[in-house]
């Protein structure tokens, strides 16, 4: 393998991995707290991308202000979803799964009715146009921005979960909801918070990818599936597992995609999910 192709694939994999980790982390946090695998998480990603398009193109807000507004809007929407739909299903994994399937259908079609059937695109702002070159490896600035923004988000979430008081409460609820409740932690509040946080992270990923790829109503399906692979791989509810799993999936997709086709890359990613579910359902970092 020549080294140029190798480094180029590595950079591409890193971009893919960052997006997947950001989506998977939200999904996994929600699972850790509420015991619900929210299949409609990909729809929050999709709504993030559409909201950025709406704010930036329709309402003509500057790009970065639009991005923040889009993330806030989706975060609030996720909080509403938690309050109205998922709150009563906390702890019921299968019922949560079924309800989220209903949400997928409802949200995808609502997005078509709201934002139109044709694919939408958000042009990158001036500052993100062009290419960065290091020796002969090139990366477009918008993709480089994905790596930077996602890293910052992940770092902030890490600080929040491990250093802040509320973050510790989140960990406590994930470990033992009853004991946490006895210590005076409001599980309702933590659930809402985590759902909003997860929705916000999915929206960040959606906005960044919406700047690179066209936005359609089904754009959330692939990141969702990959995020599912990641959380099974890393262990349901495990944060370090999510990051390691995301890296593995990003690398697989990046390298297989470069040397074969994107379809074969996706097939290998889902095969990893299938194999892991059979061999080690608890995942790399999960507790049995």
């Amino acid at each position: 393998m020549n080294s140029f192709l190798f480094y180029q694939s590595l950079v591409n994999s890193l971009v893919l991995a960052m997006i997947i980790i950001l989506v998977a982390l939200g999904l996994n946090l929600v699972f850790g707290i509420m015991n619900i695998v929210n299949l409609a998480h990909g729809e929050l990603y999709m709504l993030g991308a559409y909201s950025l398009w709406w704010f930036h193109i329709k309402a003509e807000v500057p790009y970065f202000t639009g991005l923040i507004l889009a993330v806030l809007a989706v975060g609030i929407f996720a909080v509403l979803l938690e309050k109205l739909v998922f709150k009563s299903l906390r702890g019921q994994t299968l019922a949560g799964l079924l309800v989220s399937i209903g949400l997928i259908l409802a949200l995808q079609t609502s997005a078509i009715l709201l934002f139109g059937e044709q694919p939408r695109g958000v042009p990158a702002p001036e500052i993100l146009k062009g290419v960065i070159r290091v020796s002969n490896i090139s990366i477009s600035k918008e993709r480089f921005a994905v790596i930077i923004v996602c890293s910052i988000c992940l770092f902030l979430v890490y600080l929040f979960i491990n250093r802040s008081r509320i973050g510790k409460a989140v960990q406590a609820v994930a470990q033992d909801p009853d004991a946490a409740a006895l210590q005076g932690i409001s599980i309702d509040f933590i659930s809402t918070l985590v759902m909003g946080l997860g929705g916000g992270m999915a929206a960040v990923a959606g906005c960044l990818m919406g700047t690179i790829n066209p936005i359609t109503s089904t754009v959330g399906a692939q990141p969702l599936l990959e995020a599912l692979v990641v959380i099974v791989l890393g262990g349901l509810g495990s944060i370090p597992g999510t990051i390691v799993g995301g890296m593995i999936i990003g690398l697989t997709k990046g390298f297989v995609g470069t040397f074969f086709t994107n379809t074969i890359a996706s097939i290998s990613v889902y095969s990893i999910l299938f194999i892991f579910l059979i061999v080690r359902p608890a995942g790399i970092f999960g507790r049995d």
Partner: protein
Amino acid sequence: MKSVPWVILLVGIVLFPLTGDIHWTRVLIEIFMWITVSLGFRLILTAGQINLAQIAFMGLGGYAVAILTTKLGLNYWPSLLIAVGSTAVFALGIGYISLRTKGIHFALATFAVAEIVRLIWIEWKSLFGGVGGIPNIPPPNSVLGIQFGNVISYYYFAFIMVIFSMAVMYRIERSRFGMALLIFEHTEDLAQSVGIDCFRYKNIAFVIGSSFAGLAGGFFAAFFHYVGSEDFTIHQTFYVLIYVLTGGIQSFYGTLLGVSSLIICLKMIHHIPGFNPVWEPLFLGCTLLAVMKFLPGGLISLPGRLSLERFKLDLKRGERIAGD
């Protein structure tokens, strides 16, 4: 005399194509096809396992018929048998591996299988025709002097298919095997301890359920003369799941009720002015949310629930009278 309305309904369904209404005859054919798929889906659901690959098995049946008839020039009927058989064998393999997992893990494993199978259809162009699918599937050869050309012949083909699958399900539901499946969701360990081989039972249920999907897929190929990867996406599995849950899973009559009422509703939506195809998934998604929230037992539980409500009401009234 209780069975009189049912007999009238049955005779009505049998004689329906004679009215010459092509549109509604086609709708009924679709209903029969989806009932077959949904009954298979429900069988493994009663054991507490959500099989999100059901549509992939239907697609396998369809593609098998398509390949055997167009590429190998085989007769339709032996192709259908081979298609159902190969779907069953594939399901046995998948089930043997993935039925060791439970609940959410099983749902995700079958989700992965469905996606892998769909992507292989797209990627392997020489065999499965890629995104374009396989067109020009010949109509079934005539049997007993019946030519397959018009809608009526397909109607009776589908009718026999659905009667067959209902008969199988009826037998299963009243057998020891069917009752054993019902208890797995809650007390698998207990079942195991009294000597029921849960893994084997689930495997059998999974293979039977998937074969039904393969059968319906073989019918799909003949009826539409075309199979393509777009016809067998995960969304179609979601629809099947919504039909089954809306009907209620306690009894297979619930599945019949769910499939027929929802498909008829979907066709009614078409007549609303300003119809947009995206209303269909929107309607089904909202139906699922509403059913999960307000009617967890599905439509089939409605009569019992209503009489329970009336009973409670009577009780309250009785108390009030007693209070006076």
